[in-house]
């Protein structure tokens, strides 16, 4: 496990978000003062610096901002998964996420295409959201 480069270090500040992912719920952060949402979650709102930030569930609907199929990565476990498609996606609610695309041949991908979030268990008790064509 220790030499895996893909495992997040889950912290008390973010545990709620990772725990929800294991139930298939994609949470993003929302500021109760300025009402803007953000991701990744912070303890203050990055727009107005309010400390009144709560987690809310996102729809999982997104569009493809950009992507790249990775052919070279010598870090485990990625070196055994090549090639895979790295991507940055825009959630319907606004925040942008780093992720990977699954369930599609890279030649089918188009910037702007609709995507949906899929929970993927990457280790016992750890789930990350990847995306596939909607």
């Amino acid at each position, binding site marked *: 496990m220790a030499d895996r*480069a*893909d*495992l*997040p*270090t*889950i*912290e008390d500040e*973010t545990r709620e978000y990772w725990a929800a992912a294991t139930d298939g719920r994609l949470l993003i952060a929302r500021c109760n003062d300025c009402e803007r949402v953000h*991701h*990744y979650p912070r303890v203050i709102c990055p727009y107005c610096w309010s400390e009144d930030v709560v987690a809310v569930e996102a729809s999982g609907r997104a569009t493809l*901002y*950009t*992507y*790249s*199929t*990775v*052919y*070279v*990565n*010598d*870090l485990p476990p*990625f070196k055994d*998964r090549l090639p*895979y498609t*790295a*991507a*940055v996606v825009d959630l319907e609610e606004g*925040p*942008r*996420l*780093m*992720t*990977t695309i699954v369930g599609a041949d*890279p030649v089918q991908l188009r*910037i702007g295409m609709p995507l949906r979030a899929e929970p993927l268990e*990457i280790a016992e008790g750890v789930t*990350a959201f*990847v995306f596939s064509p909607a």
Partner: protein
Amino acid sequence: MNRRVAIAGVALSDVGSVPSATPYGLIAQAASRAVKDAGLTPRDIDGLGSTSTGTLPPIEVGEYLGLTPRWVDSTAVGGAAWEVMAAHATDAIARGHADVVLLTYGSTSRSDLKKKLRTANLNWGSRGPLQWEAPFGHTLISKYAMAARRHMHEYGTTIEQLAEIAVSARYNAKDNPEASYRDPITIDDVLSGPMIADPFTKLHCCIRSDGGAAIVLVAEDRVPDLPKKPVWVLGTGECTMHMSTSQWPDMTTGPAAIAGRLAFERAGLTPQDVDVAELYDAFTYMLLVTLEDLGFCKKGEGGPFVEGGRLRLGGELPVNTDGGGLSAVHPGQRGLFLLVEAVRQLRGEAGPRQVPDARIAVASGTGGWFCSNGTVLLGRD
């Protein structure tokens, strides 16, 4: 006090493949050569800037060099650090807090990889904000590739236009004996290479070399005693943006759009005044965006701008006259090498790759994946 500041000395260490060297050795070699080039001695140095070497930079480098600097900097913003520290050093000298500042860097990243002292892809960890990207394997090259794809989508930039940047760099490298790769390449050579991260094949990516560089900045009071013509710092700008690419609002615009504008404004110059440009080219796309962001062409027009040999020696805007990070030297952080080449051009010391009568140069360093930028405008009398 508000003194003018000049770069008085520049040097490279041994560069290319230097398997017997250590980073400290290359740092010291470059420093020694740069101080000699400035006609100064180690005792003249009262300020030191260095980063990326040691646990508490620049302390270890200062100790290795036998210095007890009274002004220090180690701003760790990646490859842009050296333009940013040159900006800080200029301010400190102008203010009178230092008279002679040494910036020095060295790395053995090529030999470290050959000796298997490191992996090719770096593991940045997974704490804090990194926990949100660790699961997805976004390599450094893929981050650039994703940004390039977005530019291609929005503006119709072609992979051939991006490849031309690599071809132009190699063209310029042919006249640089210190360049690692000097044999000409074609656009087809770039496109047919092994795919690293789509759409980037190998030659869209910078080389990996060993090497060090150093510069010496001095107050105007010292200039009459210098053996060589001074190269004046005319204006500087700096900026940091995102670290996570999810926090980058527009992948077609980088931090040079802010830092570069500041540098030109403070120098009272425009891109049209520039005779030679040394712009960080970790990837072909980095150079294209930096040209746009600095204002050499409009946003989105970088593709057509780089065509037709414009960036080559003899072209309308010679860029990376030493061959750049794509062909000449790239040991991890290229920022200081940009300043060395700019000074050599303005002094008229560049030999067969000299840009005739170069009077104004810009050095623009970009760190990380468009995370930071430092831009410095330089000129001679």
